């Protein structure tokens, strides 16, 4: 084993230009994949304030299906209130509106902010760390108290260095009192993303309470992960019993409780219910990754192939002394894997730099992407897979050389 590694490094050191070209390709390919994985990881792994999201189910869309047309929208508050809040045996359930961009007017200027209406349970389902103050309570929700929790970024934009607690700000033409400040939330965490959170009961009109379809999202926090299938089927049974507002146009309501990844996948496809969207999404992502890796792999294969004959005499000698084809294939694949692992290490460094750059420039709001153990692991698996993927064919070609030809310097 040790001698294999030594041999591989020796071989790579011999032709520095080729090694560099190969490494460049491998490192860049894997770096792009590492960044993509970090973004996906950020969106779907449980992280504060969505740490409990390994045991939540979400509802983010509802379809009304009729013989001639289908309408798809976010669920309305009534659907969540009547059919989700009341699910048996859950830890908590919350409803929150789709984020809307609003303008907050202060001292003659306008500050843009993302805005969410929600309930008191929201702060139990999500685990925000309060930098100052507190969340709003069930009592404040009940009363429609004009209180707001804001993000630290908005606090800086509105109040600069001054403390924000107890200050008032005008939203929707009324004065809300700031009662809590939480850290900025990345846009990738759909349930948590916002700058201002206020009780849903502060809406000017109570019409939203009667909507089956509207602009809310619902989330259920289960007691344990094992409860998830039970909750899904319980909700599916309830959906069948939802009375239809307009039986002339529609005869069926479609909605389901989904894990965050399922709900993201469902939103990505036009035909939305009745099949495993998450599985389709996984297949698509895998195919895209493979396609993306094909060109770099082809490149590596041609480079390796063109080097066969350079190494013909080495192969000849090894064959003449009785090395089996399997041993040779192993040796060459191993070399390739060593090369890709070095490339993988470079990719992690490049990827980290790219991620740091993405976090700093404001393309993706409040991005806090991070390389973590999982991403690192993905990176390693990808690198090893890539190495084997691109190493097997050249190795097989090399091992097929006849000893005699090889010793002469190559067969044509």
């Amino acid at each position, binding site marked *: 084993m040790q001698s294999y590694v030594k041999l591989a490094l020796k071989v790579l050191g011999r032709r520095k*230009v*080729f090694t560099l*070209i190969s490494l*460049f*390709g491998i490192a*860049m*390919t894997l770096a*792009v994949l590492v960044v993509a994985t970090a973004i996906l990881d950020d969106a779907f792994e449980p992280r504060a304030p969505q740490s409990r999201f390994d045991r939540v189910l979400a509802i983010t869309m509802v379809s009304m299906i009729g013989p001639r047309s289908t309408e798809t929208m976010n669920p309305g508050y009534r659907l969540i209130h009547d059919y989700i809040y009341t699910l048996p045996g859950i830890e908590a359930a919350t409803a929150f509106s789709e984020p*809307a*961009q*609003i*303008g907050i*007017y202060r001292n*003659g*200027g*306008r500050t843009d902010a993302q805005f969410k209406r929600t309930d008191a349970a929201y702060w139990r389902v999500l685990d925000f760390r309060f930098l100052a103050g507190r969340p709003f309570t069930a009592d404040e929700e009940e009363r429609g108290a004009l209180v707001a929790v804001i993000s630290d970024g908005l606090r800086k934009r509105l109040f600069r260095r001054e403390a924000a607690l107890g200050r008032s700000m*005008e939203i*929707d*033409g009324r004065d809300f009192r700031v009662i809590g400040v939480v850290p900025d939330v990345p846009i990738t965490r759909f349930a948590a993303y916002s700058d201002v959170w206020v009780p849903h009961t502060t*809406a*000017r*009109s109570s*019409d*939203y309470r009667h*909507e089956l379809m*509207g602009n809310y999202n619902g989330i259920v926090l289960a007691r344990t992960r094992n409860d998830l299938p039970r909750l899904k089927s319980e909700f599916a049974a309830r959906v069948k019993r939802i009375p239809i507002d*307009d039986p002339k*146009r529609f005869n069926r309501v479609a909605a389901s409780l989904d894990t965050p990844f399922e709900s993201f996948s469902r939103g990505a496809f036009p035909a939305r219910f009745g099949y495993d969207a998450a599985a389709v999404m996984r297949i698509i992502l895998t195919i895209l990754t493979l396609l*993306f890796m*094909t*060109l*770099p792999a*082809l*490149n*590596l*294969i*041609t*480079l390796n*192939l*063109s*080097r066969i*004959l*350079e190494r013909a005499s080495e192969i000849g000698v090894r064959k003449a002394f009785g090395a089996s084809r399997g041993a040779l294939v192993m040796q060459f694949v191993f070399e390739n894997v060593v090369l890709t692992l070095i490339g993988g290490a470079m990719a992690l460094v490049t990827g980290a730099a790219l991620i740091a750059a993405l976090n700093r420039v404001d*393309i993706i709001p409040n991005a806090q992407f991070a390389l973590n153990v999982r991403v690192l692991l993905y990176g390693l698996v990808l690198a090893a897979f890539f190495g084997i993927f691109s190493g097997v064919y050249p190795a097989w*070609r090399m091992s097929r050389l006849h000893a005699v030809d090889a010793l002469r*310097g*190559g067969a*044509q």
Partner: protein
Amino acid sequence: MIRHLLKLVWHRKRTNALLIAEIFASFIIVFVVVTMALSLLLRWHQPLGFDYHDVWTVRLSGIEPDFEAADDAHRPVVEQLLREVRSFPQVVDAAMSATPPYGNATWDSIRDFEGRTVRLTCDSVTDGFANVMRMRVLRGRWFTPADDALSYQPMVIDADVARELFGDRDPIGQKFDKDERIIGVVAPYRKNGEVSATAEHFAFYRKSLTKPNGPVPRMIILRVRPGTSPDFEQTIAQRLHAVSPETTVHVHRLERTRDGFLRVRTSPILFLGIVSLFLISMVALGLTGVLWQTVTRRTREIGLRRAVGASGTNVRAQILGEVALLTTLALLLGTIIVAQLPLLGAFRLVQPAVFVSGMAAALATIYAITLLCGAYPSWLASTVEPAEALRYE
């Protein structure tokens, strides 16, 4: 000469097949990116059919319409709010629109017309819309308040729809559907602005705030006098809240909405461009490496050619010729495959001219890159000394 080159290429068919596959893949990538960029560039500079400067939008929410009712229960409120907005001296004009420009909401409609299926993008607007958006009426007229008395549903189409449906006939007064009649033609209107398809096929329906006609739009779109300060946003919101405390009001500037909208739609192309640039540069490096390797390996062959009288230039031409041949084979394959795309309906997405120029640009780019990759190795080959080469290894 070409037959000789073909023989040489055939001789190392397996390595060359891989190279061809690589060049082929690069061609497809360059083609896709260049065509997308070209088509965007071309669309970017087409006239929009409206003027987005100094236009603001006010979204009314909380008073949602019942889509089934014959009359919108909130119609009087909406009418009053619009009247309030128009009464400000800073406001040039204001109107309602269901799906204003640069918004994510779109109303697509597939209709049958004289036995054909036509795809339209529509909006429901009130009478002031054309004035707010500074649209140009080419034929007929725009909606007026007097249209309340019409026995049919008046419709204004843009020039693209007029050409598509009526060709050279005069569309004014033509029936579209049972109770719909075309009363005017405006210059092509591109709701998605600079990134819209070149022909969006836009049609406007009239909504009245003074008689029952189903749900009315919830977006006020207004033109302010140039230089109106942001304070005025708050003034509008306060006035509207005072009139209808039930209604939530969001004021936005169309110019800023436009910035965000365009950023979201152009960044994927930018991202794709960067990724493909890196893929292509990797292929280029790899190709250089392979050619270099080949030249070193074929030192003896080259030496022999030099010894029997070929000049350095001849040798160089041979190596470059081989590269050009490989590229041609790959591009032939690529062109044949890409040429099938129009059969799959690609011309609905891009214009034929853009498609062809995208292909031409991709061909030129790939030839340039591969020949550039061959430059150093072929120079290396031309410097081979026959005497040395013949006793090489």
